[in-house]
């Protein structure tokens, strides 16, 4: 057997990798205090290498500020553990009744690692606010933005041309599909402070829209990763028609429905232009019939949140009613709707909408692992009992 195989199949490697995983998870927990869960997750568990720096908030920072601890990230450790497990099975294990428990545990573990990877790559989370008595057919993904051109000329529907904010790199020219327009990003801030100046702004990058009429200015800000904060993405976008530049607009995801619409017009056609949280549209509408928020008697401690909803699908055969409440989500059309939050004095309900094609995998894998452990330890226990009996 080649030494490489031997190395990858060794139990020693397993133990070392597991120990490193504990270290990684520990620091990945500590750093959540500063970076929030979402960013820490990216930093530690969805990476190959991570460096922990001694936090400013800790005692003795002025003496230990230089301390940095590099460690393998989640992808690297996960990958190595997987390789270790798979080689070990090829090299050492034979599938026998006695080893069946271990096989189940290990297979379940492989499945779990795969499912976690799939979730990282494929799952999509967004939020859908619905007012009582109102309907919604889209949800917002608060961690990504899109630049949209909306053509409202058709009486029955709007046409939305969307450009993901990731493509808004300064200087690059992008044609807006199915329109005569093209754009060039002048500046793009992933997070910014947007405000109104008292007087017209000097050296304004924008020459059209609200930036001019309302004296709006944007200054870049550091990206935030906090759990309950939102990045204010802002862009200065130059829009051109076939005959040349039409103007430069300032668009930002804080300039939402509360602000006047900004419009680009060319050749007696007009498009609304906006930067907004990426919207995911659905072929159905969710109507919120009633939201209720119960409290424990004599206190303000919440006891239950629930939303009575009716779904209107384009295909009426799929219409249905549902009650969404704590621990009881609605699974519908490959999506899952959770009662996440509420607003506007209990008249708006906010659902978390999750699309996770691999959601069933962890269930299978954990079933395997649990069963495997029971089999494995059960056999050990029986052996132990027998030994006790013979020795007694």
């Amino acid at each position, binding site marked *: 057997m080649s030494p490489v195989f031997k190395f990858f199949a060794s*139990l*020693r490697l*397993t*133990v070392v990798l*597991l*120990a490193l*995983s*504990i270290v990684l*998870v*520990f620091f*990945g*927990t*500590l750093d*959540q*205090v500063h970076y*929030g*869960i979402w960013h*820490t*997750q990216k930093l*530690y*568990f969805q990476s190959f290498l991570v460096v922990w720096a001694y936090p400013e908030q800790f005692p003795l920072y002025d003496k230990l500020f230089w301390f940095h601890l590099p460690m393998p990230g989640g992808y690297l450790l996960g990958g190595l553990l997987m390789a270790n497990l798979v080689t070990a099975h090829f090299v050492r294990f034979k599938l026998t009744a006695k080893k069946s428990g271990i096989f189940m545990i290990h297979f379940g573990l492989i499945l779990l690692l795969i*499912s*976690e990877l799939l*979730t990282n790559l494929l*799952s999509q*989370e967004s939020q859908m606010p619905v007012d009582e008595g109102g309907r919604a057919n889209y949800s917002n993904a608060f961690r990504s933005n899109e630049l949209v051109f909306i053509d409202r000329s058709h009486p029955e529907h709007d046409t939305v041309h969307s450009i993901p904010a990731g493509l808004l790199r300064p200087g690059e020219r992008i044609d807006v599909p199915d329109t005569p327009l093209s754009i060039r990003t002048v500046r793009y801030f992933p997070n910014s402070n947007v405000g109104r100046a008292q007087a017209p702004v000097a050296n304004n990058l924008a020459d059209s829209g609200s930036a001019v009429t309302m004296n709006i200015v944007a200054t870049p800000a550091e990206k935030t990763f906090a*759990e309950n904060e939102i990045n204010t993405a802002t862009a200065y976008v130059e829009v051109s028609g076939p005959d040349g530049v039409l103007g430069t607009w300032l668009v930002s995801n804080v300039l939402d429905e509360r602000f006047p619409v900004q419009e680009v017009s060319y050749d007696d056609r007009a498009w609304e232009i906006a930067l907004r949280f990426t919207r995911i549209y659905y072929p159905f509408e969710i109507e919120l019939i009633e939201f209720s928020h*119960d*409290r*424990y*008697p*004599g*206190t303000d*401690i*919440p*006891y*239950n*949140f629930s939303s009575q909803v009716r779904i209107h699908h384009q295909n009426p055969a799929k219409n249905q009613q549902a009650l969404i409440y*704590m*621990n*009881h*989500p609605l699974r519908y059309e490959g999506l*899952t709707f*959770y009662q*996440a939050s509420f607003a506007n004095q209990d008249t708006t309900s906010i659902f*978390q909408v*999750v699309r*996770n094609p691999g*959601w069933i995998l*962890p*269930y299978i894998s*954990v079933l395997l*692992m*649990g069963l495997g*452990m*029971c089999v494995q*330890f059960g056999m*050990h226990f029986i052996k*132990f009992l027998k030994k*006790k009996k013979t020795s007694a």
Partner: protein
Amino acid sequence: MKKVIYILVAIFVLLIFSRQYAPTTNEEGFDITAFSELPVQDGGRIKPLDSVARNTLLVLSARQKVETPDGRWLQPIEWLMDLTMRPEVADTYRVFKIEFPDELGLAGLAEPGQRYYSFNDLQPHFSTLLELYSKVDPEPQRRSAYDRQIVKINDSLMRYHRVMHSLHPIGSGERLDRLVDEYQSFQATVGPGMDALRRQQAGDDYDANVLRRFISFGDDYLKLSQTAHMRVIPPPPPVDPMADWQNVGEALLDVMQGKSLNPFVTSYASLTMAYRAGDSESFNRTVRELQQSFEADFPASIENRVYFERVFNSLQPFGVAMQLYVLIFVLVCISWLRWPEALNKSAFWLLVLTFIIHTFGLVARMYIQERYFVFVTNLYSSAIFVGWGATLLGVIIEKFFKNGLGAAMASVVGFCTLIVAHHLAMSGDTLELMRAVLDSNFWLATHVTVITLGYSAVFLAGALAILFAVLGVFGRRLNHKMVRSLSGMVYGIICFGTLFSLVGTILGGIWADQSWGRFWGWDPKENGALMIVMMGAIYLHARWGGICGERGLMALAICGNIITAWSWFGTNLLGVGLHSYGFTEGGFYWLSVFVISQLVFIGLVLLPWRYWRSDFGREKHLKDRKRILMAAPREEV
């Protein structure tokens, strides 16, 4: 000899029980028990006054008794009676616990060696306290120890004030002696007062005196409704268990809206007058009337719960269990020196008895909370349950191994976790209600229970590993047989612990998937559980692969203690994530102490064999030397 030992043990147990349940009498003949059973709605649930008295005292003074200036000890309910009905006397009781009174900077407050102060002691310093309080950082996490103490004193004073105003308005002794008259004249004023108000607003002639009296009543009771802590006035029948109760102030204000005065209000007033006058007969009669009207209006299930909670409070099963755990540990320790058989047997049966008492406490809490099979609802109950799980495992391994080791360590874990629980109880009602997301009996009964049993197992295994280190390094008696059984126990329990941690973590994942749409979110508590599972996996792989020797495996088991403590408490200290309920002040200090102590034990177990005093260690040392000696000449060849 055996019989003598059994009798001696039995006497000790009886001593513990008699000390706990010594009957207390009230010379003046007030039916305190009946009073303590009166219902009140507090923190969203209906409980006896007794519980409010105890929880308030725990928050103020971190204990459930009060010393009067003349050196008598009062039960919590007696203190509550004085607080609400004879405030002028209660103000002299030392109920405010101040950890470091001389560091407060309140000139003239601190008395040497005294950590308890009365309301009257603190009163001269109110303005200074308020000034200090206004300077405290509003962000709790950034407060210094000094700031926290200032905040604690302020909060305590506020709570004291609010609980005091629970049963009726507070004023001079004269006012309290005439409460019923006050209510009568208030009722008599309402009609003419409203009339005068209407006339005033219409611009007509009105009686200014009547209006002034009416308004001053209104102001006073409005203030009372904002101050009174307890909701003692149940809604009128038919009763909805989810309906809001009223506090006295609210019930009095209702009269101004044309409702008749709730009889509970008058009854509490007569109670107070009777108590102040020393008239036990009418006091007891009024208490009985209150009880009867509660019984008439409410379903039996609620009454029984309230009455049972009072009994449960007085039984203090966890306090008794704590003392029994100490006794068990002492018995086993003596058994290693003399009379092993008889003492081991008594220790085992005592462990069973303690387990039953511990179980009774758990089941009683479930009954009161109306949540069967939900063992853990907050940090406090998790501590209780970890101890229970460890005791259960201890009973099981003792059944198999019969050498006292399991009983000794189970009692240590049981005792320590109950101590932890005792300190966690200082924050108030331990039977508090659960936040909406957590409120799911099925998941609480499965995920939380299983994962907490995992904690029990890891702690018990870690305790056994510590025993191995201590006995091996310092003692002489540790031999091969004991080591074999110890390592067998540790192995078995870690198997159990890993299985439970894994299954618990998985169930948590499923719960998370059901409620937030993700199986795994790298939340601190989830991560903690994952770390325990990985620790178990490391131990098992190291053992199966023969990677570590005896000492290495034991060191790993002690590591399990650190990781479990982190997962249990450390993650709550971070104050982030979905599970960060119950932020424990001062927890960081104790967690650090625990971790350092465990590191010391790890160092101990990893000491080279030549420092071991036990037979087992010395044999190992000899073997090592022999191997070196045998290897050495060969190298020379």
